Every structure is written in structure tokens, then in C-alpha cells.
């Protein structure tokens, strides 16, 4: 019988080794799945993990795309992780992302056709406000009425989607779009566009903001009293209360920060890579970011790496569809497997495997 023994402190070697081992195991298990589907397993794995980074024809294009794809995931996950650490469950970042995009886009379009360089920064603020306001609904309901934030934040995603649809088909519809749904193109209009800051790198303002958020969260968690309060509230709520942590204030702050970051992610997306408000503008970043947050063990650097890894599997998965004809569903299942292994092997960092003589439940 094997049993686990908790390590006094997490193993540094396994902190790095476990994810690597997980990827290797995923390659084996995923390879078996691809083989069952009639694919060459080695080639499929190579296309997913290697080609986006190093293929002579694709890499120059797909490497920067990694940042475009990872940017919003990281930005949202950083905000969520603060709340998750404090035991505050914002499951509705997707809704805050939508509202950020809507607020920001509506602001920019209200000033159309002005091309003032002040518009984009103001749109970012409007986007942040939109996400913040949407997150304040569960925050206030929680602090005033003790309403569970999981339910409120999650259900508000559907409300945001309904508002998005009415915007795309109605009040934000492009007046020159011949009646078709969808707003004006923000990305192709000077003033409202979110440009690439360094040409050829995929680094638009959203990616840069994501990097800044990583650093800020790192500093916050390690150097700031709020970071200490967040960690304490998550680990020992009673102790936190004795230490003078105001739980209501923490709820407002954590939901607020994650709302602001998700809202900004939405704004950067709608004014850059997506380009316009459409009925199906949101593509699930808000939910995937929850995975990214935990995959990164709620640590800013971990989230950065997890976001990039997720982006790699998305882009590699697309390449596998194109080059090998692997169905999209197989890629999804493969991503699921990768997550299973990554999450399962985390155990090695925190626990030692021991052989036990006696059976212990």
C-alpha cells in the first residue's frame, strides 16, 4: 500500500519536475489516444508542442500569437487568483470581460469618428469600470445580503451575454453595416484601436498590461499588507478576523480587482484582436482563466507560465487540426488530459510517496 506523507515545505525540485513529468505523461496518454484515432502519435505530439514554437513555416507567425492568446488569460487569472486565495469565488469573469468590452467600446464609439489619442486610454478606463461595476454586483450582494458570490457572478455571465447580443444587433450596431449585426470596427479606426506596441511581437497593450499585472500581483502578495491579509483570510478566516482584516472590505477589493482586470482584458480584446462587438464576442477566456489560475497554483509567475502553456495547446491544437486532420474534439480531450496530469502530479511537490505497512484511509 502506498501512502502520502506531507512535506514540511514544498519540494523545490518537484515544483519544477512535476509539470515536466506531467507533460511527458500527457504525451504518452495523448499519443495513445491519437493512435486510436488513426494518427501518428509522435507527429501529433510534435505538431502540438513543437511546431508553434519552432516550425520553419509557422513559428514566425505563431510565436507572437502565443502572447495574443495568453494575454487575456493571464490578465484575468491574476485577478481571479487574488480572490481565490482569499476564499472569494468569482466564477463570472466571463461576464466582467464582456461588460468591460461593452463599456469601453460604447465609450469609444460614442466619440466616433474622433481620432483623438486620448480616446484609447479613456476606453481602457471605461472598460475597467465596466468590469468593475459588473463584479460589484456580486460583491455588494455578498457584503450586504450575504448572497453567495459563486451563483451571482456565474449567472451574471448569462445576463451579460444577453446584453452583448442586444448591443450587437441593436444599440451598438454599425450604422454603415447594412443592417447586419456587429459594431463598427474599433481595431481599424485610429483612436479606438489597440495597436501592437512592438511590431512583430504580438505585444499589444493588453499583453503588456498582463505582464504588469503579474509583477504587481507578485509585489502585492509578497510585500504589501493587503497581500498578507488576502493570504491570511484564505488560510485562516478566524485568525484573519482577529488580526483586524475586514472581510467585507476584502470581498469588495478582491472582486473589484478581478473585475477591473477582466474588464480591461475584454476592452483590449475588442479594440485589438477581435476588433468589434459581435454577438459571439466572448470565447470563454473568463472560464479558461480559472483553470490557468489554479494551474499556476495561484502564484503570479505560475499563472504566467500556465497561461502560456494553455495558449500553446490552443495554437498547437489548431495546427494539428490543419496539418493532420485531428478533430477539434480530440484536441479538447487532449487539453483535458494535460490538465489532469498537471493537477494530479502537483501532489509530488507537496507530498512524499511512502510505502506504508498499515492501511490508512
Amino acid at each position, binding site marked *: 500500500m502506498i501512502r502520502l506523507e506531507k512535506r514540511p515545505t514544498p519540494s523545490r525540485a518537484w515544483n519544477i519536475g512535476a509539470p515536466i513529468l506531467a507533460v511527458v505523461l500527457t504525451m504518452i496518454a495523448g499519443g495513445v489516444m491519437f493512435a486510436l484515432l488513426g494518427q501518428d502519435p509522435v507527429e501529433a505530439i510534435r505538431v502540438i508542442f513543437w511546431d508553434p514554437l519552432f516550425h520553419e*513555416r509557422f513559428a514566425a507567425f505563431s510565436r507572437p500569437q502565443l502572447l495574443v492568446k495568453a494575454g487575456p488569460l493571464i490578465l484575468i487569472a491574476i485577478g481571479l487568483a487574488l480572490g481565490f486565495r482569499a476564499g472569494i469565488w468569482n466564477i463570472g469573469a466571463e461576464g466582467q470581460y464582456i461588460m468591460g468590452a461593452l463599456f469601453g467600446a460604447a465609450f469609444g464609439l460614442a466619440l466616433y469618428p474622433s481620432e483623438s489619442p486620448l480616446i484609447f486610454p479613456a476606453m481602457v478606463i471605461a472598460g475597467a469600470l465596466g468590469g468593475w461595476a459588473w463584479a460589484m454586483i456580486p460583491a455588494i450582494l455578498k457584503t450586504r445580503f450575504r448572497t453567495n458570490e459563486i451563483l451571482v457572478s456565474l449567472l451574471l455571465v448569462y445576463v451579460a451575454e444577453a446584453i452583448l447580443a442586444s448591443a450587437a444587433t441593436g444599440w451598438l450596431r454599425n450604422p454603415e453595416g447594412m443592417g447586419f449585426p456587429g459594431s463598427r470596427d474599433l481595431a481599424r479606426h485610429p483612436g479606438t484601436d489597440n495597436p501592437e506596441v512592438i511590431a*512583430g*511581437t504580438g505585444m499589444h497593450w493588453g499583453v503588456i498590461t498582463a505582464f504588469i499585472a503579474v509583477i504587481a500581483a507578485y509585489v502585492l502578495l509578497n510585500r504589501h499588507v493587503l497581500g498578507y491579509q488576502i493570504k491570511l483570510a484564505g488560510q485562516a478566516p478566524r485568525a484573519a478576523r482577529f488580526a483586524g482584516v475586514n472581510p467585507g472590505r476584502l470581498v469588495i477589493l478582491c472582486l473589484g480587482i478581478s473585475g477591473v482586470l477582466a474588464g480591461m482584458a475584454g476592452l483590449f480584446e475588442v479594440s485589438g484582436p477581435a476588433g468589434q462587438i459581435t454577438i459571439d464576442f466572448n470565447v470563454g477566456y473568463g472560464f479558461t482563466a480559472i483553470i490557468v489560475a489554479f494551474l499556476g497554483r495561484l502564484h503570479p509567475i505560475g499563472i504566467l507560465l500556465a497561461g502560456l502553456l494553455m495558449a500553446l495547446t490552443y495554437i498547437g491544437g489548431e495546427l494539428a487540426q490543419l496539418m493532420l486532420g485531428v478533430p477539434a*474534439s480530440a484536441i479538447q480531450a487532449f487539453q483535458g488530459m494535460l490538465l489532469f496530469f498537471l493537477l494530479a502530479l502537483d501532489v509530488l511537490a507537496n507530498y512524499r510517496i511512502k510505502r506504508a505497512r498499515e492501511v490508512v484511509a
Partner: protein
Amino acid sequence: MKHLKTLLAVGAVAAAAALPATAQEEPFTVGFIHVGSTGDMGWSFTHDQGRIAMDEHFGDAVETVMAESVAEGADAERVMTQMILGGADMIVATSFGFGPAVNAVAEQFPDVYFEHATGFMRDHPNVSTYNARFYEGRAVTGHIAGHMTESNIVGYIGSYPIPTVIRGMNSAFLHAREVNPDVEFRMIFVGTWFDPALEADAAQALIDQGADVILQHTDSTAPHAVSQEAGTFAFGQASDMAQFKPAPRITSVIDNWGPFYIDRVQAAMDGTWEQQDAWEGFAEERIILGEITGPVPDEVRASALALRDSIASGEYHPFTGPINMQDGTPWLAEGETPEDGPLAGMNFFVEGITAELQN
């Protein structure tokens, strides 16, 4: 989008450098990109059927690649670019929302042909758009619905209040009214393209509100399952939905993209491909009327087929005046038919429909 230009150019050079060596023996490659799963049994499924038909027609001369469940916007742009870097000579993008991405990528790759379904943006000479005149099919299903309803209430499940859906509702309504002056339409917009359970609920709601014939502009068979139980009628949408024959499915309007893809790929290979805005219907067999089954009386079957034939021959346009807008404002004068442009962007209900468009 815009800021990707430079690196797209880099990629293009790389692709160009890689291609010529083998270009002559390589088959013509067509990349298909779908917003949904090809297992959706509806829109993306029928386009994939078209791809398969085209692939079989050309054999080794043409190769197809496919990406499904691709989100509109940045993801679509990336997937199309990767397809081209991988050697695609033509891109077929099968969702309206791919429009901006199609045009952005088309600008980077002027030698690649683009076919964009249901779109209207053709900013570059290598972008064509295509669509089917589904409203022609809806004229026929509306005609049958008008005859078949006994309660004089026809239910209609729509996704969103957008032109393609609104146009179909108008067409079905006009032709139901033509044969049954007492008929009324009840509309539900479910606010999604894809939620079979919600479609079932909507069908039940319409039946409870008195409807005994259900039309739908969503792709699942859920309304048929509900209709089967309730003893009401429904129509196959996008595919034949033959599993519900002979009732509740009494006929269907089938999307038939294969021949179109064959023509366009052939034209591209021959060097005769030109930019176009194809909007084809019964005449070109872009849509096909499925078998009209037993519950429909013979004379109705005959008149429905006659209606289809007159539309196919060009003798009759489903929107032939006099037609007023909902508020009574004249839209088409006696004998007048609309231009394709305004028809494509149709955003109002015609006179007689009682539901209001609110969005």
C-alpha cells in the same frame, strides 16, 4: 489585426519560399473554417458535407483541410493564416462573423482565394461572398404551414433578430397569409444559435400558445421531438432531418453547398475565379426542398411544388409587391421586387406580423 501585418508579411515570405519547389505536383489545397462543430447536425455539418462532396469530386487534384469550432475574431484570423502558411490556396470561411478576419487575412495574401459565407465585406479583389436564398425555401414552408395549420397559429423559433432570420420570417409569413388570410405568426427569439433543450422549450411554449405548425431558424431536431409528442408539424432545417419522417417533419429545406464549392474550386484552378457576391437559391439548387410527406394533402403538395418551380424559374420572387412594412408604410409597389442589397439587410417585419422587433 492591423498590428499583425508585419509579421504576417514575414510569414508570407516564409511560405512563399517554402512553396515553389513542390508547387507543381502539390494538389490545390482548400482550407475550411467553421464556427461550430461539424457534428452540430446543422449549419457547420452541411458545409462539411459540401466539403466532402467537393473532395470526392476532385479526387487527388484537391486536398482539403478543416478547422472547426473556431471563434470569430482573432482565432479565426490566426487559423486562416496558419492554413495559408501550410499551403492553402483557397479559404472557405462558413460563418458571417468571420468577415473582418477574412478581409484582414485576404489583404496579406492577395494570391489566395477567399470564399466567405453569408458575408457582405469584399474589401479586396480576392474575397468573394456567397449565401443561399433561404427565404425562397421559407416561402414554400410558409405556404405549406398556412395550409396545414388548423388553429391558424404558426410558431416560429428564431435565434437573434438579425436580417437573415427576419427575412425568413417575413417570407414564410407572406406565403402563409397568401393561402390562409386568418393565419398569425408567434415568434420566439431564443438568444442563441445553439441550445437544443432551449429550442425544445421554445417549441413547447409555442404549442402551448396555440401553434400547431412550428418553423425554426435554429438547427436542432429538438422542436421535432416536441412536435412528435404534441402531434404538431415541423420542417427539416439545414439538413433533411429524415429521422422524423413522415411526421412531424413534413418537408425540409436542405442546404446544398457541394456543387458551389466544386464550381469555385474549379474556377480557381482554371484561373477563371473572379470576385462575386453569389446569392443562390432553388434555381441553382443551393437549397433543395426535401420530400413532402404523407400528412400534406396532394393538392397542397402540388401547389408547394409549383411555388418552388416558379421561384426556381425566376418567374416569381417571394417578395413581390404590394408589400407594406409592419407600420403600414409602403415598401414594394404592385409587382415590384426588391434589390438584393436592401433585401440582404432587411431589418423590419412586414405588415400583418403582430410581434414587434425590439433589440
